[in-house]
């Protein structure tokens, strides 16, 4: 079970920055009006490095007090599935369980409970939660091509070619790069792997023929 935490909560360095003024990335001097939102680079008042700092309204956003979840006051009031003593504020859109303000995780306007967030991530269903992907198409392509390029390893192809073919078929429908939507690497890997396997087949066939003849 993964632990849930607000981004950066566990890093003290991250926390210290939160309410501070924007500062110079080199010398750490706090930056005042003269440097902020200027059309060109201006010298830092601390170290004279040329800086251009653009600030946005989010910097001044007053943060709401801790949403710790309201306590159930009236008997029979619906409570959170995970915290029996906390008042439910809405139902999870994944499983319908009632959750309190503390358990409610908003994601692109949808609300999920911690458990749904966890399973959604595990299945890769909630895309905006994904933070890592393996590029199986690049692996397949490397397996098919690299032993040929580094030609002294050509005999490895008896192993790598079937592996490349297997990977291309096995992961054909697996999500690849989040920004690249082509299967061309799989196709190229399959063509090269098939040719290599055919080559080995023909080679072995002739070898056996010669031994018999």
């Amino acid at each position, binding site marked *: 079970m993964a632990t849930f935490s607000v*981004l950066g909560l566990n890093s003290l360095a991250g926390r210290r920055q*939160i309410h501070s*003024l924007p500062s110079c*990335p080199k010398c750490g001097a706090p930056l005042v009006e003269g440097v902020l939102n200027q059309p060109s680079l201006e010298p830092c008042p601390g170290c004279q490095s040329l800086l251009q*700092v653009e600030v946005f309204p*989010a910097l001044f956003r007053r943060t709401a007090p801790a949403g710790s979840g309201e306590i159930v006051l009236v008997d029979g009031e619906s409570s959170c599935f995970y915290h029996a003593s906390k008042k439910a504020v809405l139902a999870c859109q994944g499983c319908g369980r009632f959750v309190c303000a503390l358990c409610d995780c908003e994601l*692109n306007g949808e609300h999920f409970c911690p458990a749904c967030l966890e399973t959604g991530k595990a299945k890769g269903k909630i895309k905006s939660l994904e933070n890592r992907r393996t*590029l199986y198409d690049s692996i397949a392509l490397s397996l098919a091509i690299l032993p040929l390029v580094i030609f002294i390893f050509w005999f490895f192809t008896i192993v790598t070619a079937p592996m490349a073919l297997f990977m291309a078929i096995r992961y054909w429908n697996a999500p690849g790069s989040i920004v690249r939507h082509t299967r061309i690497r799989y196709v190229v890997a399959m063509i090269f792997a098939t040719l290599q396997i055919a080559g080995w087949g023909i080679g072995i066939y002739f070898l056996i023929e010669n031994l018999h003849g």
Partner: protein
Amino acid sequence: MAEQEYRRLTRSRVRRKGFLGFFTIVASTRSSLWLAKDHVLSIDSRRYTEEYKRFYFRDIQAITIRQTKRRAIWNFALMLLLVFWLGMLVSMVSGFESDSATIALLCTWFLILAVPLLANNILGPTCAVYLRTAVQIEELPSLNRVRRAHKALARIRPLISAAQGQLAPEEVSVRIREMNQSSDASAMAGASQNARSESAPTVEDAPSRIVVEPQ
């Protein structure tokens, strides 16, 4: 499954890891930026994996461009090499053993060194860019030249404004002064906040977004 649309914002650049970054190009992490409708996606690609970080337009607090000395350092190094080769070339030509093949080779090398020197200056001043949200400050290594950073900023700025609204220049100075005055008070409050955050995860600073930490 409908894939989310990403438009490329920057080409990928090596994420610098100290000075050694230059020598570890083969095993390096490359970083690039992409635009979606509500966030900037930063991709760190190693050869066979991609790691993603999302910066939602509504959460971006500040973008800082800092001019660096990287261009000057490269200029110095390339110039030094060029002078060295020039010296070799001159001594070859003036020497009695000047054979045209060697001179051709040295001329080629001269050009090989001159082209990056020229490019280094055409591309303009180098910089480091930092993006700040309520909870993190991230360097964006793919924005490594001031001109490129300005172009990217020009594309992001309207998207952030659309999500957050715009700040009038005089409003900025008023708010900054407010912040400056309250920073002493909040420094004291900060200690108690830290103590509380260890007992229960609260959603106080981060704009209602919770992440699942990888194990």
